[in-house]
């Protein structure tokens, strides 16, 4: 089993397959995830293998999907919901925020909602508007939810399985351009997984924070900076967006006293703000420079011809590093 090379997408399909195979209570629900194998093909072959009672093409109604999945979960099933694109979760926002996130609290632990919501996010597929959202803040401000965003196949598989094992609702994000769509392979062995429960998000590498797919931009920028200027940077990949992995953040900042945050969501009230606040709380006196945010701008994600200008690019990250270090 060692040495297998999987794309993000394959890792996800493998995890889903494994979960469906291991536990009869697991069901997948969503639009076009059955016969069609998902608009990103992440459920390919599963309908054929497990049948339409386990891999269910639902009506086109996100509140219906999330709401009935809550019911399924209340009554012993382990539903995994696919929302086709992150923005299309909005019709089901009430079910998620007012019910999935609160059922355990409301019933004092009597009824939990072990639900996984899987949704692609972020720009990159070059579709029409509302196919490029990155609004993690909405969910990270909702007690009762957990949000994970893996940056690579290994983490994807592990986090997805951990999400399903978690007794509470977990939102699992695939960055779109990591998903295999752009056919980039991650040379990562991916046969086992790490439990998120044990280590909600660590994966440090080498003073800035980023999440999900932004890891690529961050790593590329730091590599270039090292080549050009000889500066070494540590990159923290925040796999878990809520709750945040504070210890890793604080440890890192204490080493260097400087940080740059990279995310593709809008700047204002983006998760970067919370990370800055955590550093302010825990490590202000270590700071040698303001913490910079290189993020998506505070505008709706523009059409794809200029989308890349909206996104934090390697160049913008590099400039951010230079500004932070030269401060």
């Amino acid at each position, binding site marked *: 089993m060692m040495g297998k090379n999987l794309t993000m997408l394959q890792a996800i399909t493998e995890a889903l397959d494994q979960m469906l195979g291991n536990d009869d209570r697991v069901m997948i629900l969503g639009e076009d995830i059955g016969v069609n194998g998902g608009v990103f093909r992440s459920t390919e072959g599963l309908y054929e293998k497990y049948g339409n009672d386990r891999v269910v093409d639902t009506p086109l109604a996100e*509140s*219906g999907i999330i*709401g009935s999945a*809550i*019911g399924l979960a209340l009554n012993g099933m382990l539903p995994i919901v696919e929302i086709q694109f992150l923005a299309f979760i909005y019709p089901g926002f*009430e079910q998620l925020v007012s019910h999935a996130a609160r059922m355990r609290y409301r019933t004092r632990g009597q009824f939990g909602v072990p639900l996984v919501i899987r949704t692609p996010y972020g720009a990159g597929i070059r579709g029409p508007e509302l196919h490029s959202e990155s609004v993690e803040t909405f969910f990270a401000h909702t007690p009762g939810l957990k949000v994970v965003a893996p940056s690579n196949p290994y983490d994807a598989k592990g986090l997805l399985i951990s999400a399903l094992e*978690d007794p*509470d609702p977990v939102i699992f994000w695939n960055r779109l351009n990591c998903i295999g769509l752009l056919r980039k392979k991650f040379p990562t062995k991916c046969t086992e997984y790490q439990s998120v429960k044990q280590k909600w998000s660590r994966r440090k590498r080498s003073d800035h924070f980023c999440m999900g797919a932004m890891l690529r931009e961050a790593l590329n920028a730091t590599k270039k900076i090292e080549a050009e200027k000889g500066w070494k940077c540590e990159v923290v990949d925040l796999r878990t967006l809520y709750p945040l992995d*504070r210890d890793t953040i604080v440890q890192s900042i204490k080493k260097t006293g400087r940080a740059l945050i990279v995310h593709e969501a809008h700047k204002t009230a983006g998760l970067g703000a919370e990370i800055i606040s955590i550093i302010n709380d825990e490590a202000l006196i270590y700071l040698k420079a303001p913490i910079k945010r290189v993020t998506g701008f505070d505008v709706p994600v523009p059409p794809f011809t200029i989308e890349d200008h909206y996104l934090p690019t390697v160049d913008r990250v590099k400039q951010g590093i230079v500004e932070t270090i030269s401060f």
Partner: protein
Amino acid sequence: MKQHLITDIKTNKNILGCYFMTVQNLGKFAKQIYLKGRNEMEKTGNPIMKAHSSEVEPEMFRVLTPDGEIIETIDGKIDKSLMLKMYESMLLLRTFDRKSINLQRQGRIGTYAPFEGQEASQAGSALALAAGDWMFPTYRDHGAAIIHGQELYRVFLYWMAHFDGSICPEGKRLLPPSVPIATQMLHAVGTAWASKIKGEKNVSIAYFGDGATSEGDFHEALNFAGVYKTPTIFFCQNNGYAISVPFEKQSASKTISQRAAAYDIHGVRVDGNDIFAVWMTVKEAVERALKGEGPTLIEAITFRYGAHTTADNPNIYRDQDEISTFWRENRDPITRLRKYLNKEGHWNEEQEELVLKQFNELIDAHLKKAEGYPKSDPLEMFNHVYAEESWHLKEQKQELNQFLKKGGKK
């Protein structure tokens, strides 16, 4: 008549819902009810019209008339002991409801949502369920919840804003009152779907009001239930108003049951103040569901005599006296069953007094338990956010704990 009303629409291809007939097509009993309805309305300046916004009241299934007469066969279905259970259930609920309003006035519980007038709908539907069935009530359906097994002191705790008021007895499948309108209907689809998958012979029932039918979740729930043929009962108590908004402002449609046709599912309009009719309708819906015939939308026509909640003043938006008086005098669910039971010699004044005394004692005992119940500890707010407490909640709990220990005031 009943057979007509509960006929599967699929066998009636040219009529989308035969409970929606004109008077010309009605059978003998139905015609009687219809004419009776008209008389009632004419006597009183048509207050049902005001409450339910129809020029002519659309047809509904009725078994027990307001005069205490039975116009359908109930043999083999409703026996004396069930009748007495029904009667006592309604009496208990009304006593509880009135007590609660008083407690709110005395400041012993918080804002309260009364249901007096809707006892037949709530008790009748709940009595038709099995112990293992899933129930999804709203804030107004603690009547149904009590009959399904919720303990009275828990209901008090709920309205006292105690965390533990949302817990149901161990093993019961009774969810806390749903506050966001219509959302719980989808949960009843999901749990029923799971029962079906697991081969468990249980139905799920969702309670909701006439106002709830305007929300998108109403539509999505009925549609999903239709697609997956889930054993779900959608039990709408059409009390004519969503707070101040009469049903005629809620929709151009005359009835709620007619919406079943939009999803090719089964729909019934029933006299919600007739506990026999409600019970039979729900029982039949349960049977259909367990036979795999899918969901039923039930519209129970009823009226709450009181305010939307104790924080509401109905006089602002309706002729509260006239309309409540009409319903009390002409349509009361308890009065009509009492009339019948009296006539049949099943019930008398002494029994009534005795039972009422017992109920008052029971309620007082539960109130005492609720009032003596340990107060919610502020630190409890950090529990059950997740199954396992995360670092940030541990710290925040600690923070509040220290603050309180130092004598910090809330």
